[in-house]
């Protein structure tokens, strides 16, 4: 049997002889592999982004919102009727077994002033547990303590965007900012969180003790009212039990009869996000499948060229057979040519795919991630295309009768 290096040499020479034809054949594979890589990069980028947003929001999270109420046949929207209280929040933590942590939220938009700069932002009254509920550690300074909440101290934790807009180089720690003209001491700065799922800047925020927000900033319709309660379940598997327990507890606490609607809503954001991630994954597969079609077409191009090549080089095959080439030698020669064609095409396609996905990121602003897996997949696939579509022509060539091949004009 003829050695692989020699076969490769023969194949390379044969491909070099027909440069234009080889290049055009490769183009099919280049476009195919490039498209597969670029499409997978777009899809992977999208699902990676969603996955990161899920992580950024905080995992295993339920959000309890005050619900709509029906009053004389008119149903109001979510949150239109304040029904949640700080006591609800404390009760959830105390009585629901599947719940790990709660953070009551009482927020509003306020103007915040430092020196001669001012900035309008979302001011959120909450407790120290916000950091663990939202998986959002403090970047610098100290967290909010239960003492801060109990005595409604005027302290604030700033998001990075607020710091950037108010301080410009000055260390914000222990500085005094004014929120609605009330002085607050900055006790810490949150770490950078980035954009939310809907593209909102999550760092554009100020955290203050919930009691301070209730009493000094936004007021309450009744004592202890909060706008929402964030609930963190013990684990992903505890989300459903937690949802059930919270619902039961709140119905009981709000004295809602068995046939009446809830006056609150429990939202499982993680589930929604996971559904979105699932969709992104499906989209990735879909895009990949569409791109694979072009790879398939490229493969058929290879088969086409190899068949032409076999016919054109029938005499060469005859000569090789006359001097002792075996069936396997001839097959190996043509399969090697096909594989080399597709692997060179695959390599160039890889480069084109990576460049293409970077161009997409730059032009369309999409996030793209070229995973080693997709590169490997496209490359392996192009190799397989070479073997698969190279086999038939090679097989055909190897079965020629030596004398018929030699006499072929």
């Amino acid at each position: 049997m003829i050695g692989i290096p020699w076969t490769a040499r023969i194949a390379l020479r044969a491909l070099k002889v027909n440069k234009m034809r080889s290049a055009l054949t490769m183009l099919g594979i280049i476009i195919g592999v490039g498209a597969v890589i670029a499409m997978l990069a777009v899809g992977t980028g999208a699902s990676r982004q969603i996955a990161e947003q899920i992580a950024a929001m905080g995992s295993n999270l339920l959000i309890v919102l005050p619900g709509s109420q029906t009053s004389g046949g008119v149903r109001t929207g979510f949150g239109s009727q304040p029904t949640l209280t700080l006591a609800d929040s404390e009760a959830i933590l105390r009585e629901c077994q599947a719940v790990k942590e709660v953070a009551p939220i009482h927020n509003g938009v306020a103007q915040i002033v430092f020196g001669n700069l001012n900035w309008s932002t979302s001011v959120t009254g909450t407790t120290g547990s916000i950091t663990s509920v939202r998986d959002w550690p403090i970047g610098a300074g100290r967290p909010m303590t239960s003492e801060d909440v109990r005595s409604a101290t005027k302290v604030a934790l700033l998001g990075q965007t607020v710091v950037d807009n108010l301080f410009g180089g000055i260390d914000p720690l222990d500085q005094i900012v004014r929120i609605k003209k009330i002085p607050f001491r900055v006790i810490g700065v949150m770490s950078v969180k980035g954009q939310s799922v809907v593209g909102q800047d999550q760092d554009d925020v100020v955290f203050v003790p919930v009691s301070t927000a209730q009493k000094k900033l936004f007021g309450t319709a009744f004592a202890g009212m909060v706008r929402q309660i964030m609930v963190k379940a013990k684990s992903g598997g505890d989300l459903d039990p937690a949802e059930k327990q919270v619902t039961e507890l709140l119905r009981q606490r709000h004295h809602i009869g068995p046939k009446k609607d809830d006056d609150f809503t429990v939202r499982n954001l993680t589930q929604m996000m996971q559904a979105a991630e699932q969709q992104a994954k499906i989209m990735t597969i879909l895009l990949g499948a569409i791109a694979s079609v072009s790879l398939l077409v490229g493969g058929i191009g290879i088969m086409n060229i190899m068949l032409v090549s076999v016919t054109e080089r029938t005499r060469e095959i005859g000569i090789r057979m006359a001097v002792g080439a075996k069936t396997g030698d001839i097959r190996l020669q043509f399969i090697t040519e096909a594989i080399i064609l597709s692997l060179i095409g695959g390599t160039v396609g890889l480069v084109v795919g990576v460049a293409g996905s970077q161009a997409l990121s730059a032009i369309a602003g999409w996030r793209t991630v070229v995973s080693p897996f997709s590169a490997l997949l496209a490359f392996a696939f192009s190799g397989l295309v070479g073997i698969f579509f190279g086999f038939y022509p090679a097989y055909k060539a190897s079965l020629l009768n030596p004398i018929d091949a030699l006499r072929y004009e």
Partner: protein
Amino acid sequence: MRLIEAKGISKIYPLGEIELKALDSVTVTIDEGEFLAIMGPSGSGKSTFMNVIGCLDIPTSGQYLLGGVDTGRLGRDELARIRNQKIGFVFQGFNLLSRTSALENVELPMLYNGVSVRERKEKALTALKTVGLEGRENHHPNQLSGGQQQRVAIARAIVNQAPIILADEPTGNLDTRTSMEIMVLFRKLNSDAGITVILVTHEADIAAYSKRVVRFLDGRVVSDEQRMPAGETKG
């Protein structure tokens, strides 16, 4: 010693309703070291016979023994091995690989029997030297004259030390002077290296170099005579 034994070889091509009998019960025996010419007009079956004894074609019926081995029992790859080891072909149209140097053309048979790269080159250079093409090893076929191309083909035929050379109209595309040179080369290979040379020709002055002439007509052997080769003095 018996080298080639063709017993009742027939080759029939079905042409629709009728059959074309290219070979009709041909029986020929050839010994080692013979220099034999197969003659006959076009369509007499002489090339078909050569293809059969060269294992390029398979007879419809009859038995062909090569070195005592019944080739009818061999598969494709075993026949390929015989062509590689036992037979060197020289064709009218040279049948060299274009865009491939003379050296690589001569190396070709060794590509298929596992000879090391270095030995391959050594043997190919020796073979080229034998046919008088020293220094032309890097020329491509289109840079060589017809006679030189045929010498490359002969070098390729002898490089594996095959005991048989089968030449099908080897001088058909060459002028008279070059033809004579090629025939002298064949005679030298026959007398010096003891290679059995079987050549197919329809030219009497080419056949004159051989020691035995077998004539074909309509697929049958019509005469088989030993003779004194031209240009050789008996003694």
